[in-house]
């Protein structure tokens, strides 16, 4: 062990945050980096970039970073890939880390891509397992929507990896841990940056799908409740269908509320206008990996499975006992979701004392 510890070297972790609020996935990455660093005599440096973000340093230490490189500047107040990537690349050129880990978020993925060009190296995106041997990182990642896995290596340094959300588990927090904060300056001046962030429009909805532990998901079946009577001013058949489905999603929302879950949907539900695209699970939606996925009125098309096949426990509620979703389901109910879901909400309320 002692000899291995003398190897040295650093792993950089990009701590992704939105307006100063770190994504839970950032801590999963710090934890994974700490584990590998510990096994290989390396240390972990967390990169915290933004404005007024110094408070992110403390949890970064507690989750396992030994050092925080902190850039606090007006030009970094809003996330923009150009100044962020330029700074990450500059810091990497200065300290020559063995690897840079990012969470697989919209920001993490594009920063890794851009830094790879600056540093003339490669990116292994959406990694679910990491090995380090002979000075080289080998990572496992799903390809073809998870139908296959690939072992991927990067021959250049630093190896840039983005780690799939919820693939590495949440690390323990050690509130006794602290470390050194090194302040760093931005790599670009404002007048060298060709983009400006004008505004934000937040999405509605409680829990973000990507890192949800529990997801209640609805499909086309949600519109199938002929006994629900739409208000008289809705005369168009298509609008009636949408209205019915929206009542269905309200009902799902109540179950989700009791379970502290996020609400997902099939593409058929999204395309029919029942619910916004932000909720779509699947190959052309979000890939999720919750502990519990409750699929209601979803048939289980291959493109839908692509987005949720790694869920730990799948529950399917469907009228059709032949629906393919049942093959993946730990528990199945063959029945009308309009009867089962309200009863299930009630049952959980009683049991979870909500």
């Amino acid at each position: 062990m002692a000899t291995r510890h003398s190897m040295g070297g650093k792993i950089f972790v990009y701590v992704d945050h939105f307006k100063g609020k770190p994504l839970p996935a950032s801590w999963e990455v710090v934890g994974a980096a700490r584990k590998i660093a510990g096994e290989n005599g390396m240390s972990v440096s967390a990169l915290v970039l933004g404005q007024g973000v110094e408070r992110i340093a403390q949890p970064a230490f507690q989750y396992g970073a030994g050092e925080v490189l902190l850039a606090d500047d007006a030009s970094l107040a809003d996330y923009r890939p150009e100044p962020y990537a330029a700074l990450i690349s500059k810091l990497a050129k200065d300290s020559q880390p063995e690897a840079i880990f990012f969470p697989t978020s919209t920001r993490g993925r594009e920063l890794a891509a851009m830094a790879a060009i600056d540093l003339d190296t490669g990116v292994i995106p959406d990694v679910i397992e990491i090995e380090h041997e002979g000075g080289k990182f080998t990572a496992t990642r799903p390809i073809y929507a998870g139908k296959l896995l690939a072992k991927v290596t990067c021959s250049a340094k630093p190896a840039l990896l983005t780690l799939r959300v919820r693939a590495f588990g949440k690390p323990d927090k050690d509130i006794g841990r602290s470390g050194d904060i090194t302040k760093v300056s931005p790599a670009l001046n404002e007048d060298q940056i060709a983009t400006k962030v004008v505004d934000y429009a937040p999405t509605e909805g409680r829990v973000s799908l990507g890192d949800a532990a529990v997801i209640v998901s609805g499909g086309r079946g949600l519109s199938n409740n002929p006994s629900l009577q739409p208000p008289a001013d809705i005369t168009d058949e298509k609008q009636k269908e949408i209205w019915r489905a929206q009542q269905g999603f309200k009902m799902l929302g109540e179950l989700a509320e009791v379970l502290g879950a996020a609400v997902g949907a099939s593409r058929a539900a999204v395309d029919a206008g029942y619910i916004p695209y932000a909720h779509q699970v699947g190959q052309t939606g979000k890939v999720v990996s919750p502990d519990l996925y409750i699929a209601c009125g979803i048939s289980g098309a291959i493109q839908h499975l692509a987005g949720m096949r790694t869920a730990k426990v799948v529950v399917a509620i469907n009228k059709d006992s032949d629906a393919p979703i049942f093959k993946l389901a730990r528990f199945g109910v063959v029945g009308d979701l309009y009867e089962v879901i309200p009863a299930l909400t009630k049952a959980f309320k009683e049991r979870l004392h909500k």
Partner: protein
Amino acid sequence: MKIAVFVKQVPDSAAKVALENGVVSWGDAPLVINPWDEYAVEAALSLTEQHGGEVTAISLGDESAKEALKHALAMGCGHAILISDPALKGIDSAGVARVCAAAVQKLADIDVAVFGKQAIDSDTGLTAAMAARILGWPALTLVASIAQLDPAAKTIRVQRGIEEGRQIVEGKLPAVISIVKDFGEPRYPSFMGIRKASKAEIPSLTLAELGTQAPEAKITWPELISPPKRKVTNEMITGASADEIAANLADKIIAEGVL
């Protein structure tokens, strides 16, 4: 406006993908245009409809990739170019991005280079941001809508889809954009478009003809693995009434320890 849109040919999303002697096989499933790239083509076409100009669709691949280009032509793109070279074998994302950037430069005076979000075979989702970096252009990725574009002032304002909702960003042209599904359903190829595309002679360029060469791959994938078959013990929950079913199900779920 001069626009380039990048389209990849991939196995259909419904394909049963498996390993045969360590090599990927998708049986008799068809090869199709990458679904995300249909949104990219839609965005490219809608830009020229509003501002005039022409769209060139570009694909890197072998002869078969001409089918993806024909789909783009049938949707309404004016031109298509295939980049085909034995040296593309084993190329990594950065390499693809370098070739895409070289193609953009070869076409000259491109205002917007449009990419899909991700290729559904390799699932990497890196090319757009990499190409932007190589070109030194703004990277406006994951664009859900183009709020405004001024060809004279050379400015663009987009809404980007991020985890937290939408980020509205303004940038200068030329720029790289990648498109997500919110942009709107891609149009179907018209009958006329299909006829035109079926007759089109698609030029094929080698890397030398592009004025570039195959970049050395930093990323290699020495081993492909079939994911371990998940053993799911199915249990159907029954009961005399919805309430009884629900009570049984809730108890079982709680017993799994996932809440």
